Every structure is written in structure tokens, then in C-alpha cells.
């Protein structure tokens, strides 16, 4: 069973367009990419379609990918995912003008999660969608995906100092939205 620590060897094989190597990369990183996209678009079907799109773009660009180690390869995939989500919102903006907070959020199911926790998580997710695109990205990458400042900076094309400032502003704004009841359902 391939592990993320084998990424370097798998990427080498993937560069020769070996179908199995590319499928292994999908298997290893599907959940990370899906999770990032899901929190950005809040729709299961769209998240799946966009994740699919990211991995097809991975095949297209694998030969130009200089990232071989697990973390830098993940950062490369997140860069593709970020661009795909930006394109998605551009297309959405053309098709309809629904503000993000009016989107339907999926239920936080699971019998093992207490109802109060589910409600808090829903409020938080709703509030997250009211942040600006950059603020959402930094919050999702840093706290949900657990990336470092350096990795987040690489994905967003900013300096580490700028990421620290953006992270601070985003948390302050998110706290403000929640305190004002901005995460409550409409």
C-alpha cells in the first residue's frame, strides 16, 4: 500500500505518465484536495467535480512539477485547487449572483457528534463563507488543512509575513462575524 512518504518515487513514475502512479497520487491526496475544495464551495457535487478537475490538471502538468516531497507536492496540488475554485466562482458569478452566505450548507451529520457541537460547527462554517476569498483560503489552509505559514505563503503567492497578518485579520473578522450572529442560519 503506497504511503505519502513514497510521493517522491511515485511522482517520478507519474512523470512518465504511468497510469498506476497517477492513480496512486489520486488515492493519496484525494481527501486533502476534496476537503479544501469542499470548505470553499460548500457543495458535495461541485466539490467532487472540482476535485476531479484538479487531478486531471495534475496529469497535464505533472512533467512541469518540480515538487517531489510530500508537503511540497501537496502545496502544488493546492495551488491547482485554488485556481480551479477561483475559476468556479468566476463562472458562478456570470451564471447567477447568489451571495455565498445564501448557499445551502450540507448537514453536519453523524450520531456520535452532540447536537450542540453540530450547531456550533454549522455556525462556524456559515461564518467562514462570509470572509473574503483570501481570508477563507488562509483559514482553511492553516487551520483545517494544517499547513505551515511557509506552505500557505507558497500556495497563495505571498510572503510569510503577509500570511501572518492575513491570518490575524481573518481570525479577528471571523470572531466579529460570529459575535454579531453572522453565522446563524438566515
Amino acid at each position, binding site marked *: 500500500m503506497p504511503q505519502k512518504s513514497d510521493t517522491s518515487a511515485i511522482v517520478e513514475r507519474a512523470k512518465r505518465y504511468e497510469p498506476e502512479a497517477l492513480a496512486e497520487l489520486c488515492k493519496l491526496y484525494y481527501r486533502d484536495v476534496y476537503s479544501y475544495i469542499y*470548505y470553499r464551495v460548500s457543495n*458535495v457535487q461541485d*466539490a467532487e467535480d472540482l*476535485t*476531479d478537475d484538479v*487531478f486531471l490538471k495534475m496529469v497535464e502538468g505533472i512533467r512541469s512539477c518540480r515538487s517531489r516531497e510530500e508537503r511540497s507536492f501537496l502545496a502544488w496540488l493546492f495551488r491547482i485547487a485554488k485556481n480551479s475554485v477561483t475559476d468556479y466562482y468566476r463562472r458562478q458569478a456570470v451564471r447567477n449572483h447568489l451571495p455565498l452566505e445564501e448557499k445551502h450548507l450540507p448537514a453536519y451529520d453523524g450520531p456520535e457528534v452532540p447536537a450542540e457541537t453540530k450547531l456550533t460547527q454549522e455556525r462556524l462554517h456559515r461564518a467562514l463563507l462570509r470572509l473574503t476569498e483570501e481570508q477563507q483560503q488562509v483559514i482553511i489552509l492553516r487551520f483545517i488543512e494544517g499547513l505551515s505559514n511557509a506552505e500557505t505563503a507558497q500556495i497563495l503567492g505571498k510572503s510569510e509575513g503577509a500570511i501572518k497578518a492575513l491570518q*490575524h485579520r481573518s481570525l479577528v473578522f471571523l470572531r466579529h462575524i460570529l459575535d454579531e450572529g453572522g453565522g446563524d442560519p438566515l
Partner: protein
Amino acid sequence: MKENPDKVLDERLSQVLTEDKGVEESVPQHPDDLSQLEPLLRLAIEIKALPRPEPRPGALRATQARVREAAVNKQAGWGGLLSRWLAGQRVSLAFAQALAAVIAIAVIGFGTVAASADSLPHSPLYPVKRTTERVQLFITFSTSGKAQLHLSFAERRLNETMELVNCCHSIDDTTLVSMLEETNLAIKMISALPTPEAEPLVNRALELTAQQHTCLSQMKGEVSTDEGCMLDEAISTCGCYEQILKGETPDMHQPTVVPE
């Protein structure tokens, strides 16, 4: 001089989130910042605790199938070959016009082929999809390449069967038989390969038969009793294939194919 607040928050976040220190442990070092930092640190902990969504079963498999297909197309690389050849040529205007006409016809043809990729049985474009597959097999010379293609085609037939069940609650017996035939052909090709070359393909084929087993079992609740019996036979055939791939003697001497 007062420390940069972004840096102070970042340091405290790293203590709380990566070193698993409590908020109380972290903040008292800077009591002046207590009122400002504490709610932000607690918020970051709440965000970190948000559940990571689970993709639906089948989503990863569908993406893997498309990625494998894209890889096979990349390996073929006819387009790249043509553009490299053209780059080294000095072509006359008449030749260029003729070439443009040929390319236009080819583009229309490729467009139809591309449009047929997602077609389902009974769709007008489905025969184009199946013909494209035959052509792919015809231009693939290596046994391992052919085995990979048969596995991809078997996976496609499974996905098509699933989509038909999802939308029409019905099984297309020809597609189901074709899925088993493609699996059978892949196994025959794999058995002709030397062990190092066969091993990854055996693993992929085992993964496929396991998927077939799971998906066909799930479909049973969605279709009529008669079609359910057909699925039972197909599941049993997949079981035989799995045993062959594991080097065991199958329960039946010959893998059965679903009766028409």
C-alpha cells in the same frame, strides 16, 4: 518596543495548535494581550476541530479511472509528435491549406470522440465510444498496455452500469456482460506477463474485482428481482476472477458469464 501583534498571535497559535498547549498556558506569558488573544486562539481551536468531509464512495474511483485514461492518452502523444514534426518543416501555402482542411476534419472527428466519452449505453454517441476503445486496443502493441486498457474498459462498464441503475433503476445486460468479458481478457493478458510486470496489474485487477463486488451488491436493492439474480451471477463470476488472481482454484472450473 511593542512586539508585532501578528507575530505574537502566530507564536501563540503554533503553541496551541501544534504543541498542544492549552490557551491558559500560552496566554499568561503576555497578560496584556489576554483579552485580545484568548478569543482568537479559542476560535482557531474550534476551526481545527471542524470535521474533514468524507468524499462519497465511488468519487475517488471515478477520478482514478479518468486519470488513468488521461495518462494513456498522454502516452500515445500523437498531437505532440505532429507538432514537433511540423516545427521542423517549411511548408508551402497550398500544402498548409490542405493540411488545415485535414486538421479541421480531424478536429470535428476528435470532438465527436471527446463528446462520446461520457455517453451511456442507448445514447447515440455510445457506439463511437466503443469504437474508439477498439481503436485504442488496435494501436496498443504491448501485452501489459492491452491488459491496462481491458481493466480501464471493465471499470468504465462498471461505472456505466452504476449510472444506469442510478438514473433508470435498471440493468443493461450487454454492458454487464461486457464488464465481465473485459475483466476476463485483462486476466488472460496479465497471466501471460512476467511476474515483475504482472504484479502491479494483478493488484489493480484485484482492486477492480473488489469494487465490482461492492458496487454490484449495492445495486441489488435498486433493481427488480430478475435483474437482482443477474447481478448475483455477475458477483459470483467476479468472485471466481478474484480467486484466479490470488492464485487459488476457483469454485467453478470456468468463470460463468451472465446469461442473456
